[in-house]
């Protein structure tokens, strides 16, 4: 019903391109996260969907109803889009109590007083804020304000819920709990939701689908697992989790994969198939590297450098010739270590 379709959407500010020719389809009921560093265009996209920013070009529609179309010069004002938006700063109106904040969108829709009351009560109980209904925003903590803001965005049955880094002002513990809670709430409402964040852990934990963006372009769309396991570019590999990068060249094929020669001369097998002779960037996540007791297949000998204690795990900075390789392990390492790089964990990216 409420599929969101974005076609050839661009947003330029003079010479600066904030979003460049973006096309995206979001299915009804999906929880989609826009993830990327600041300035990647994720918030611009969110506000363009909301109608609070005007695209330079393109088309945005919900459930077949056009909200913006540069060709037909259609531009539905934000107040007619029936969307819910939770701001990073929550944007609760300071001169209204929590209840009045929720009542405002219902009043605008000329909803009968009795219906207003029951809907507000329902929405407040949903976010567990019933007892704070008569408080003013300044009398609420950040977490409480955030929940009232969410209730305000839900109380009038929006077609789409937009969340602009709503958890970024909460402290770490609260944020983790709010994540789970938000996810469950969205599932039970089955409301199409777009979530904007620059926090990769949040994105992985909460989304059905993640859209990774950088410099105004979509780099990859996929489920959290797909993105983490099979990042399509070094940027995605590095932005979601972390990754080591080594330079190499494909020197042959074996077992359906490719053999890569590193700058040290060592050869490693990757499960990925890349044409022979290609210059590649080899990527592997620190936690996928296995410590071996001696030489073996796909194993290199590295000099062990600094140790960083991360609590549940140890991270070492090791050297492979000129290049650095971070390794996570529970074992304490000596001066040298044999590192096994499983072929299925070795990702290859051709260098242009």
């Amino acid at each position, binding site marked *: 019903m409420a599929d969101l379709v974005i076609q050839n959407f661009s947003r330029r500010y003079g010479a600066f391109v904030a979003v460049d020719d973006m096309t995206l389809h979001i299915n009804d009921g999906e929880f989609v996260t826009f993830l990327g560093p600041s300035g990647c265009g994720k918030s611009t996209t969110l506000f363009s969907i909301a109608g609070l920013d005007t695209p330079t070009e393109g088309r945005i529609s919900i459930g077949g109803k056009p909200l913006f179309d540069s060709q037909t010069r259609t531009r539905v004002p934000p*107040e007619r889009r029936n969307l819910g938006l939770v701001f990073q700063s929550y*944007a609760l109106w300071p001169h209204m109590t929590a209840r009045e904040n929720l009542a405002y969108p219902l009043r605008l829709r000329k*909803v009968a007083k009795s219906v207003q009351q029951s809907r507000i009560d329902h929405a407040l109980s949903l976010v567990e804020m019933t007892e704070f209904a008569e408080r003013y925003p300044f009398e609420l903590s950040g977490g409480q304000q955030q929940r009232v803001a969410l209730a305000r965005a839900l109380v009038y049955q929006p077609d789409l819920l937009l969340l602009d880094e709503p958890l970024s002002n909460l402290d770490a513990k609260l944020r983790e709990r709010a994540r789970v809670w938000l996810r469950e709430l969205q599932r039970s*409402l089955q409301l199409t939701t777009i979530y904007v964040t620059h926090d990769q852990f949040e994105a992985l934990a909460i989304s059905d689908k993640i859209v990774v963006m950088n410099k105004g372009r979509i780099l990859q769309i996929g489920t959290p697992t797909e993105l983490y396991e099979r990042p399509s570019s070094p940027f995605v590999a590095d932005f979601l989790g972390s990754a080591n990068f080594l330079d190499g060249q494909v020197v042959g094929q074996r077992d359906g994969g490719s053999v890569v020669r590193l700058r040290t001369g060592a050869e490693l097998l990757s499960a990925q198939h890349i044409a022979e002779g290609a210059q590649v960037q080899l990527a592997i996540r620190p936690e996928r590297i296995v410590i071996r007791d001696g030489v073996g297949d796909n194993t290199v000998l590295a000099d062990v450098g600094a140790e960083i204690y991360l609590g549940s795990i140890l991270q070492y900075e090791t050297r492979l010739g000129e290049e650095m390789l971070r390794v996570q392990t529970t074992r304490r390492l000596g001066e040298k270590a044999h590192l096994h790089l499983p072929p299925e964990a070795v990702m290859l990216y051709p260098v242009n």
Partner: protein
Amino acid sequence: MTQPTGQGLMQRTGDVRPDPMQGRDYSRLIQWAVAAVLVVIVAGPLIPILLQGVLSAPLYSAENSFSLGNFTRLFAASGVGTMVWNTVAFALIATVIAQVVGASMAILIGRTNLPGRAWMGEIVIWPIFVGHLVIAFGWVTMYGPSGYISMFVRSLTGVQPWDLYTLTGMGVVGGLTLAPMAYLFCIGAVMKIDGQLEDAARSVGASPFRAMLGVTLPMMRPALVYSTMTNLVIAIEMLSIPLLFGAPVNISTITTFIYQNGLKAVGQPDYGLVGAASVMLLAVVLVLIWAQAGLMRNAARFVSVKGKASRVTRLDLGRARWPLAMLLGGYIFFFIILVFLGVILRAFVSFLSPFVPIGSALTLSNFQQIFDSESHVRAILNSLTISAVGGAVGVAFALLVVVVAMRSEFRYRRALHSIALLPRAVPGIVAGLGIFYMLIWLPGFSILRGTIWIIALAYIMRYVSLAFSSIAPAVTQIGDELDRGARISGASWWRTMRDVVFPLVKPAAFAAYCLLFIQFFKDYVTASFVTQAGSEVIGTSMLGLWNNGENGAVSALATIQIAVTITFIIFARRIMGVKIYG
């Protein structure tokens, strides 16, 4: 946290319409209307002035042609060179004195341990509230050729100690009248300087005095530059002091030239000449305001506060403490308290002279004269009505202009912003003349002729920039996500303004109202070309009485003006909780 259940909330039961818009959305209509009204009230008076400058005959004349004849006539006219020189000399002397006095007072009061600085800071800004005309009367009463203090000093020394009816005298009085403005700008800057910056200078080896010279003074630079330009503009366009002190001895400035040729001329006023002079004055002020904006561009270099208020460290004046306090106290006593006292005292006596005991001259006849005259009573009531009602309308209108210019998607909002700030560069006398022309020139406006509403309109036009600038910062402080939240919830732009922005800027709007009330109440220059019998205001009536030599009645009227202003300020501060100038 418990498992939330949200099914019911999202189930469409038909009791919540997805499209909130019912009825018409007036947002666009309102935006266009605000823009149209602003353009009319700003351009309405300006265009006829500019036209009159280049028209060969009076504006309303049927036979007219464009020419630069007015300007050639103006520059050829005898005495015009002297007039320009007088204007420049007066403005420069006044500005220099105002800046030196104002900045010194700001440092002494805001940054040192001067005894009595708190109450001195209060008194120093009094003159701002009552306007130059009243201050000028006070000076004449005390320090004029037959003033109380002048005669007293002459009786002791046998010589006339000073002569205010000279260019220098005018400049000194002008400077001391403008000093509170410089003080106000500088004290604002001085109080905001982070004490840690001076501490930092001390920690690297600067003496307290060096720290003040090296850190405090440069940090005041934007305020100094800004207030210098502002005072220069006020001095150039000032009518009161040149008219009271210069006109009797034929020292003519550009404002008295326009005033006398445009209003007081015997027979037919020379509209062309007055138009050309007005265009010239307007051009000079525009250039100064433009230069001011240019000079302020790098002001961020001197911004030291980032939200947090820090403690103010005070320089210990040491042994200079008491002498400096005496000096500032003396200044306040002689040039503020005595000036006010002169006006008030003169209102209650039949004759004010050091040789006549005040007790024997006490009388209420001056007030009697005011209250017996229908036109003077009307002037007081008119001033009150214009200030109270016109001020309210002015603030409401300025608020609309602010939200359209700063909080809407209106296509010409930037242009609107610039137009709203333009009247700041229009001298009162030019605005007054322009409004007078507008009555003749714009169809429909002639019904306002002779009413107080044309005066209210003139004041609103003249002070829309002031109201705009005093409301705009408060609107900027309201995070735009608050309006965005309302829009996304289903409110049109106009409803968002009504339900979210207006309630939140109420305190700033009140403060702007008080500011406008005070300005409207003391202004008279802008009104002087359009007042008629029936639409007098206090200022024009005072000038009329002054011309008839009825100094007692002038002082009574001035005293009434002071009393009303004080009452209003106390009311605004106590009841409405509005801060007026700190």
